[in-house]
């Protein structure tokens, strides 16, 4: 009898569908995966180490580059964490909170669009890819209007926002969310009822609720397994308790359910954005915390006090009292957590980021063992990983 040989193939770090520089060592028996070992770290930039050597303000741009598909969610988590550390959470003005929620939800849509695009492309449906990027482009344009950058927005500030909304921005957002549910219908029209799509996703990369909690899945991936947990509702931040939305849960925990969960989440995000737009009132965008927030630009250029004030904050930063906090936010990919330790200096003593993709990726080996090579692609796609966040 012939010896049963296992073929080891090296998938990535250069591979079209490992979503960046993920390397998977796959041991294959024919096309059946016997063992999958992820190797990560090819994109490690030492964000945590770098942030220890920067002031709190200057660490903010580093967070843009974590999950580069959802920069505003990262910003939001970070500024909330620093605000909590400073104890100024209650001082954040209403307008800043509403804009934060609005942008975080737009970011969620943006991130989910890229997920859907690449996931569908991985499974072979190439048209959805371009449709999704068309809508994402609209969000990118909004980003650009708002912050001057399409990807790394760096828009939120500790204590509020860097700039107020530009003229006509609300109209843009409103016309976008008016159109978005129709676009989601289009994607669904191409995929949901498609027999091949169903065959490729139903029952693939299944994980049940207990296993999902045990391995640490969060976000839509966990909710698709039937665990009703959403930080926006359960540990509300930035005023999420004032919005009405459904936490989407599904029961089967397979690729199809995760797909449906994320699509429904986009619809809910549209609802939240609509409520945020209705709530939006003129008002200050920075907290009344002079030790933390920069003075308005007119003051800086017109008065010596303003200039000194800005100079002090820029050069010295602010010094939270010693202590440690953990702030989790519901990023598009799951729970994004910042664990900050302050020693009373102007730099974070320790900043630990809990990237959702990092933990979610851990579930990959158990999802794909015994499955086919094609299912590995589907599983990577359905976990919605971003290597910038995994490797930090």
């Amino acid at each position, binding site marked *: 009898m012939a010896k049963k040989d296992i073929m080891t193939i090296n998938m990535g770090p250069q591979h079209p569908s490992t979503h960046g520089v993920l390397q998977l060592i796959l041991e294959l028996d024919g096309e059946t995966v016997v063992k999958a070992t992820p190797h990560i770290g090819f994109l490690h930039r030492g964000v945590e180490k770098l942030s220890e*050597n920067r002031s709190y303000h200057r660490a903010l741009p580093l967070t843009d580059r974590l999950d580069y598909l959802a920069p505003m969610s990262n910003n939001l988590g970070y500024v909330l964490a620093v605000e909590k550390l400073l104890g100024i959470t209650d001082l954040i003005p209403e307008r800043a909170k509403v804009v934060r929620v609005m942008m975080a939800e737009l970011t969620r849509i943006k991130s989910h669009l890229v997920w859907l695009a690449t996931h569908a492309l991985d499974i072979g449906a190439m048209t959805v890819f371009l449709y999704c990027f068309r809508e994402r482009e609209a969000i990118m344009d909004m980003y650009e209007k708002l912050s001057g950058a399409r990807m790394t927005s760096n828009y939120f500030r500790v204590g509020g926002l860097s700039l107020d909304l530009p003229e006509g921005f609300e109209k843009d957002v409103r016309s976008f969310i008016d159109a978005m549910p129709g676009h989601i219908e289009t994607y669904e029209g191409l995929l949901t009822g498609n027999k091949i799509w169903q065959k490729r996703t139903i029952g693939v990369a299944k994980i049940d609720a207990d296993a999902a909690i045990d*391995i640490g899945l969060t976000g839509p991936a966990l909710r698709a397994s039937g665990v009703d947990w959403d930080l926006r509702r359960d540990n509300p931040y930035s005023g999420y308790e004032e919005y009405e939305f459904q936490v989407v849960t599904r029961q089967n925990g397979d690729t199809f359910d995760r797909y449906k969960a994320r699509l429904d989440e986009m619809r809910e995000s549209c609802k939240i954005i609509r409520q945020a737009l209705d709530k939006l009132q003129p008002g200050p965008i920075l907290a009344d915390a002079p030790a933390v927030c920069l003075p308005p630009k007119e003051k800086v250029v017109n008065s010596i006090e303003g200039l000194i004030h800005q100079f002090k904050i820029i050069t010295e930063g602010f010094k939270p009292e010693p202590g440690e906090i953990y702030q989790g936010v519901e990023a598009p990919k799951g729970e994004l957590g910042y664990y900050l330790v302050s020693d009373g200096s102007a730099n974070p003593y320790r900043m630990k980021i809990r990237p959702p993709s990092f933990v979610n990726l*851990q579930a990959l080996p158990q999802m794909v063992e015994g499955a086919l090579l094609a299912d590995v692609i589907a599983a990577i796609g359905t976990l919605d990983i971003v290597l910038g966040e995994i490797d930090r």
Partner: protein
Amino acid sequence: MSQAVVAKLKGAFPATVQEVKEHRGEVTVTVKREDIVQVCDFLKKEAGYNFLCDLCGVDYLGQQPRFMVVYNLYNITTKERLRVKVAVPEEDACVETVSGVWSTANWHERECWDLMGIRFANHPDLRRILMPENWEGHPLRKDYPLQGPGREPYQGRLS
């Protein structure tokens, strides 16, 4: 609520709980290193902290003991958070693994070993995770130069 859990924990492990702190509404419990697995097991099974959000090491260079390993726990039913810490001395930088309690600890502990140099006893697969296999040193330690080994300490500018 978290205080009730702490009280319960104190009841079950009177000798283990060393310090309880509250900062910005978050409770931190420092426990003895030897009992971390039992404490975690207790918290998971008896107190419902079924989700390990995060696990990391903190380097308090110059203090004794030097390291802290921090466990951020979450209770999905009551939506409560709790932080458990253990102190780890430099000369014996080793903690029992909790990957038997929550599988998710596996990669977190690997990362902690990789970047902070804290070993986890009985860990199923303790390899470096972010840095290359043959890397020397543990970058997140405070005495590790920011710009890499053999370089001047960072002075707030590029040198």
